[in-house]
């Protein structure tokens, strides 16, 4: 049998650096490797010996696209350990901050990174040459998300105000209210976005997935909730404190990121899983807009990720409007608390899926151990599995076409490769 090797040296339109390596003997697949060659940056090592109050500014630097997610999982973990009682308005403001990140990150992926695949272009800039109004809508939606982050956090990338106990400073009511005009526009634009993406041409590629996300009693999950598993595996509700008993990591040769499994099997985290697990907690407009698309849940086709992401962008905009309209600044931006030693963990919903942090803190408040599990490393083995499932249907195509189709599958996941690499512990080659 002839051996065939297909490579994508650099996966485009993703955050960070990854490659794909497929080896086949005739029609038999020998291996599918999503290679993450984004260099490791030793975050776990840096965090040791740092004060808990420094952690949110450090972990933000793991990812420029979802810094709030990293800050949020970190401060939530410490607040559990210190038994901090958050002011309800502070909690709302945190949800609002997260809305800002979801809106900007989802708008970026929908319009700039993913849409070109469906329309046959190399980039959104090329789309703008034939449909400038579409790309401008995407850029403006992203700007609306950025504006929320800038108003609460000072800047959109690596915002500065979030801290253990609350915020260093909270915005005045009238300052937040200035965001409403653009948000009302964004709500309509997000509805249009859902209709637009639902009309794209989707490959027929339904898979049997294990959907994993947070689930909250009465909210679409951002900061809080248990872990919920559905789909191919039996439904299960798992407290975040038991995460590591169910989800294990392994280190494989071809990747600078660890891979995760649920009871030894690949699983899926991110918008598709969140929507499938939390449909009941959507705002009425998000829910009815989803209905109009005619798509039935659970969504089992990764290419529908762009629809799920668009529905979530609408959901985040509606949530942001609700919070701002009802906002009453907290009496004190930061709650009082006492530092305690011990271990703590938290998981929040980054735009790309569940982001788990665990820390061990000593009596002085210094970090003794840190563990961070980003969404992309959780999805990595599921992406490889998808490509294995896709290959038989395109095996007769030329290498270039196969590489292109596989890249399309990878982009459905909005992988953030910069994130996935950073928590890895490793050895050093001395010069």
């Amino acid at each position, binding site marked *: 049998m002839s051996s065939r090797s297909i490579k994508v040296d650099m996966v485009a339109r993703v955050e960070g650096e990854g490659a794909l390596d497929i080896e086949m003997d005739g029609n038999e697949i020998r291996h599918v490797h999503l290679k993450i060659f984004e260099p490791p940056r*030793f975050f776990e090592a*840096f965090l040791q*010996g740092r004060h808990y109050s420094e952690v949110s*500014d450090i972990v933000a*630097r793991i990812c*420029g696209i979802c810094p709030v997610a990293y800050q949020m999982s970190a401060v939530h973990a410490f607040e559990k350990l210190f038994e901090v009682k958050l002011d309800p308005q502070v909690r709302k403001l945190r949800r609002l901050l997260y809305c800002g990140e979801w809106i900007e990150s989802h708008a*970026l992926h929908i319009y700039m*990174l993913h849409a070109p695949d469906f329309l046959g272009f190399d980039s959104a800039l090329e789309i703008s040459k034939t449909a400038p109004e579409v790309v401008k809508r995407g850029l403006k939606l992203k700007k609306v998300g950025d504006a929320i982050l800038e108003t609460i956090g000072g800047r959109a990338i690596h915002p*500065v105000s979030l801290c253990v106990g609350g915020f260093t400073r909270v915005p005045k009511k009238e300052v937040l209210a200035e965001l409403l005009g653009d948000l009302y526009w964004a709500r309509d634009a997000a509805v249009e976005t859902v209709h637009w993406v639902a009309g794209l041409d989707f490959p027929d590629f339904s898979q049997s997935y294990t959907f994993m996300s947070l689930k909250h009693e009465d909210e679409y999950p951002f900061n809080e909730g248990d872990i919920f598993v559905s789909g191919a595996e039996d439904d299960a509700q798992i407290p975040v404190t038991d995460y590591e008993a169910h989800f294990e990591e392994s280190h494989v040769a071809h990747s600078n990121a660890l891979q995760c499994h649920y009871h030894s099997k690949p699983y899926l985290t991110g918008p598709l899983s969140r929507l499938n697990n939390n449909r009941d907690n959507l705002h009425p407009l998000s829910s009815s807009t989803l209905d109009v698309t005619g798509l039935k849940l659970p969504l089992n086709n990764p290419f529908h990720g762009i629809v799920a992401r668009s529905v979530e962008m609408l959901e985040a905009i509606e949530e942001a409007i609700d919070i701002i309209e009802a906002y009453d600044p907290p009496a004190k931006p930061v709650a009082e608390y006492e530092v305690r030693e011990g271990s703590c963990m938290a998981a929040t919903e980054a735009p790309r899926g569940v982001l788990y942090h665990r820390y061990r803190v000593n009596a002085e408040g210094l970090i003794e151990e840190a563990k961070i599990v980003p969404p992309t490393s959780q999805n990595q083995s599921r992406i490889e599995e998808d490509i294995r499932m896709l290959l038989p249907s395109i095996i007769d195509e030329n290498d270039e076409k196969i590489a292109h189709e596989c890249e399309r599958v990878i982009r459905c996941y909005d992988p953030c490769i910069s994130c996935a690499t950073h928590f890895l512990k490793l*050895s050093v080659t001395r010069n």
Partner: protein
Amino acid sequence: MATSDMTVSKKIKPRLAVFKFASCDGCQLSILSLDEDLLILDQAVDIAYFPEASSKMQEGPYDVTLVEGSISTPEHLHQIAEIREQSKILITIGACATAGGLQALRNFADADHFTEVVYAHPEYIESLSTSTPISEHVKVDFELWGCPIDKLQLKQLLSDLLAGVTPRFPGQSLCQECKRKSEVCVLVSGGEPCLGPVTRTGCGAICPSMGKPCYGCFGPADLSFPNDREQANAASLAERFATELKMSEDEIRRRFHLIYSYMSPFKEIGDADKKGGGNN
């Protein structure tokens, strides 16, 4: 600062490239966050290589190359040399590319420390023991500082290049910007370890305006502009942290060794008496 020829051709569209080394992606995201100005940029230049934005990856040479990230693997050493050869003007964007970034903290750790945190299969990984700025390896024509870079400075930089102007940004300390915004002093009135007196301006004094001490994410105030009559005297500020704020040596070291740990004069703070410290 910029002694090299920074002019780009006005006859044909200059070719722009964006490369990434070890980093969080935030600085190149700033390009995608230029809102509708991104479309104007696309008309003014030929975006020839920018994998995060486009699948179309064209080979060099390039007129203007923006580089994000620090040099941290053996392969990076070859790549940056090749990129330099292909680039007329090479500009580093952000703290990683200009100073090694947060990950340059590993430059101060001894080998034993890393051996302690070795994971399951260290043989799978290739990494240098240091994270270093681009300018340690090749000639850099201009540096844009900050973690992340400031969007307005990025716009200014690109406009300057296209207009044939040599870009130049103020290197003075954050304090001056903060005073102009009439913020209450976080250090003098708040008693907090603000790095504003020794940190370069450019962010808009975000932290003080949020009631938080500056943590130095724009790096040391610039020493190369004597006309600004300003020296970033980090050692003096560190002394004040010790005497007035009663901070321990380790607290002071951690304060300076965060985003710009590998750049003088932040680099020297607390490093001399650090056991096994790589004073490189």
